[in-house]
């Protein structure tokens, strides 16, 4: 460690090794608390090393990152368990070092070594790290850091699949409704990413988990009393159902009278934003060519009310698509 502050330039590999040594030290001494000077010195050293990693990966003010240096760094980083140590000990780092570490981990997810994404391979054999990252939403000190890392990790399709198929998916329904706006929104962003990024994987997940997933989605999110929860959920529902790859799921969703009732209630929400998002889902019910009798029944029963509602349903901005959709919905309902 003596060479650390000497003028001899360290290679990217050196920096990774020293970072790992710092982390190992922290790991071994994690039992001993107290502000002993040695420990603080080590922490400062670690902070410097992580910042150095960041500047190699992102470049600094003067220079762009060098591909070769990034490759060396990435190889060395994933050769051993540096990522694991970094994730586990993140809560012990100070705010600035945590932010640097988060950016380093994010960047590493995109680094390729001989056209392979090393991070993805590493995570596939260390899936428990994702469990740790997800549980971060239960600790508000690290939630935003773990959350940001997690969203980078689920860019890998195999990792997203792991999370989707894990028990963690159920926990997101709680995380989304945490009182702290920053954290709840972060969880929402991750949830949305999971359910929209990898089309085929998402379609498969929704098909296999249709019953419990939409039950939770309807009762806990769409019927929530929390404005933000409702607004984000209805937007996400629209994004999911309107995606071509989820066509089968959409058909199933719009064939249910219970779903229709929830959507019709959202059309009457006091929030204009929620009304508009709800309309984008409601129109699918109306446009469905094979409406089940129970759906037709509800639409017919409420026909005059619905038509009256749509007559006065306007959005501030001119939107041809919206107007066309509305016309279509009115036509469909009138024709029933």
């Amino acid at each position, binding site marked *: 460690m003596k060479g650390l502050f000497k003028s001899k330039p360290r290679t990217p590999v050196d920096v990774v090794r020293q970072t790992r040594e710092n982390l190992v030290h922290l790991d071994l001494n994690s039992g001993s*608390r107290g*502000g002993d000077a040695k420990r*603080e010195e080590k*922490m*400062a050293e670690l902070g410097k090393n992580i910042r150095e990693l960041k500047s190699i990966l992102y470049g600094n003010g003067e220079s762009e990152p060098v591909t070769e240096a990034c490759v060396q760094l990435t190889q060395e980083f994933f050769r051993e368990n540096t990522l694991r140590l970094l994730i586990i000990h993140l*809560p*012990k*780092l*100070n*705010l*600035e070092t945590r*932010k640097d570490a988060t950016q380093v981990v994010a960047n590493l*997810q*995109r680094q390729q070594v001989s056209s392979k*994404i090393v991070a993805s391979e590493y995570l596939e054999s260390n899936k428990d790290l994702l469990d740790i990252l997800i549980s971060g939403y*239960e*600790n*508000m*000190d690290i939630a*935003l850091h773990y959350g940001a890392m997690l969203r980078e990790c689920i*860019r*890998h*399709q195999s990792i997203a699949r792991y999370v989707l198929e894990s028990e963690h998916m159920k926990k997101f329904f709680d995380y989304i409704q945490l*009182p*702290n*706006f*920053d954290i709840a*929104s*972060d969880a*929402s*962003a991750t949830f949305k990413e999971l359910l929209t*990024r*990898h089309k085929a994987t998402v379609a498969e997940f929704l098909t296999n988990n249709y019953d419990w997933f939409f039950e939770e989605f309807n009762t806990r999110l769409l019927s929530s009393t*929390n*404005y*933000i929860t409702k*607004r*984000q959920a209805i937007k996400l529902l629209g994004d999911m159902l309107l995606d071509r790859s989820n066509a089968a799921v959409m058909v199933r969703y719009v064939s249910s009278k219970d779903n229709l009732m929830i959507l019709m209630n959202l059309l009457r929400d006091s*929030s*204009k*934003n929620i009304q508009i998002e709800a309309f984008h889902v409601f129109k699918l019910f109306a446009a469905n060519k094979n409406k089940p009798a129970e759906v037709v029944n509800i639409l017919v029963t409420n026909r005059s009310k619905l038509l009256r509602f749509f007559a006065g349903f306007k959005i*501030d901005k001119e939107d041809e698509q919206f107007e066309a959709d509305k016309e279509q919905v009115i036509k469909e309902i009138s024709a029933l």
Partner: protein
Amino acid sequence: MLQLLALLRPPSAMAGDPGGEVKYPLDAESYRLLCKIGSGVSAVVYKAVCLPLGSSAVVAIKAIDLERSRANLDDVWREAKAMALLSHRNVLRAHCSFTVGSHLWVVMPFMGAGSLHSILSHGFPDGLPEPCVAVVLKDTLRALCYLHEQGRIHRDIKAGNILVDSDGSVKLADFGVSASIYEIGPAASSGPIHAPPPAALGSSCFNDLAGTPYWMAPEVIHSHVGYGIKADIWSFGITALELAHGRPPLSHLPPSKSMLMRITSRVRLEDAEATTSTSAKRKKFSKAFKDMVSSCLCQEPAKRPSAEKLLRHPFFRGCRSNDYLVRNVLAAVPSIEERCKDANLCGCARGARCVSPCRHAAGSVVKNRRISGWNFNEENLEFDPAEAGAAEKRCGLPFHEEEDDDPADLESNSAGDGNEDSRATATMTRGSHDEKAAATGFKEVVVPQLMTILASLEMQRGMVMHVLENGSCHVADGINGCGGMAASNPGEEMLLGYVRQLEHRVEELGTEVEEEVARNARLEKQLQERVSAHKTDSSSQTSGSN
């Protein structure tokens, strides 16, 4: 490493403070709102007490109406997150944020003395003494250093976003995209520029428009690839002038005129230069100050110093302490509560300068990026905004002959003036009356110029779209390739942001052109009516005296 132990504390249902000692509850019932200390289009700022922490735990709460705010929730979240992760003594950090119905409550430290903008307008209309300017600027620079080191660009440096606590400590507020969401300065913008009363100007986009363009760097508009941290340095230079003079350069003009001045500033400012020596009331500033400011206002971003380098500028040597601010500035202004009492009335003053009522409802939230054609160089540094006015006067623009069109005057005098619109019209009519010929000339000048801007913006948009289209092909490849790894590169997001901004500007300018034309027609009509009335009047008077 001092935070280390604090960071080890167990999780809880309360939001943490950077220091770790104080935790702020996440429900509305735990706070008692004391009074409104600022308001904007979609947000209101309150002074409040956090009840569980005792009656001395005063905070500022910014309540953002998420229904009215046009910004989407993702932007609001990104901003809240950024704010939660910044930690610097000169940067305002939110204690916590949570939703109350369709409002987002952002709980922040209460900055007892308000914003520098408010301080200027309530006690220093002609600017702060130079040593005080130095104290404020030094702390602002420290904040900028930190932000830039974090790779964040503030993008809205101005006196209205620099807050002072009652102990003289200075904090920079409102970060990055925050300008589009937190469109008024927290606990601070009780000053007239940023506080139109929602009732009168609820759908106006003018407060933001007026508050921000003056500080804007030329490349903010001109560059198509985004702009760097050096744009902040420009705004910092303008803010230095604002603090020294009590207002930013050219701010005595209403926004639309200021914009015009900036388009044509090359000629006008040189005109002004010729008359500089005749200016009687000219503030004296040290050479170090002038040198510091002009280095910030260098046209070429690369030549502007970094925040870190600026901190080492001789101007900041021997800078006084924050106590000095308390004794020399805070002692001279009324408390923020007192200032707020007439805040709403002050706000009306903006109405007078609103060229015509703005009709875009929610559009107001989007930050306006204005044309910026400053022609600053070391020689004709615009230290005294009034000179530009002189230039304008000489050029025969009719609407600003009257002294009371000066914003500072408007703001301070307007307390009892309920109907600003009529007053403004009166002023304008008088102006037109005096220079009837010029009025027509003015219209001829304004409309083509606005048309030119419009065309230029359309062109810029075209270019951005072009770049984007190329970019999106690339992105599509990325998705097919490796699970969409390349899908959201930041450059693309930035460009998209640009396109939106530009589109919005084009839209606005279009409306403005229309409004300008309509108003000119109206004024001409009024003028004719007045002239004919005047004739009848004088003829009847003549006959009467006979």
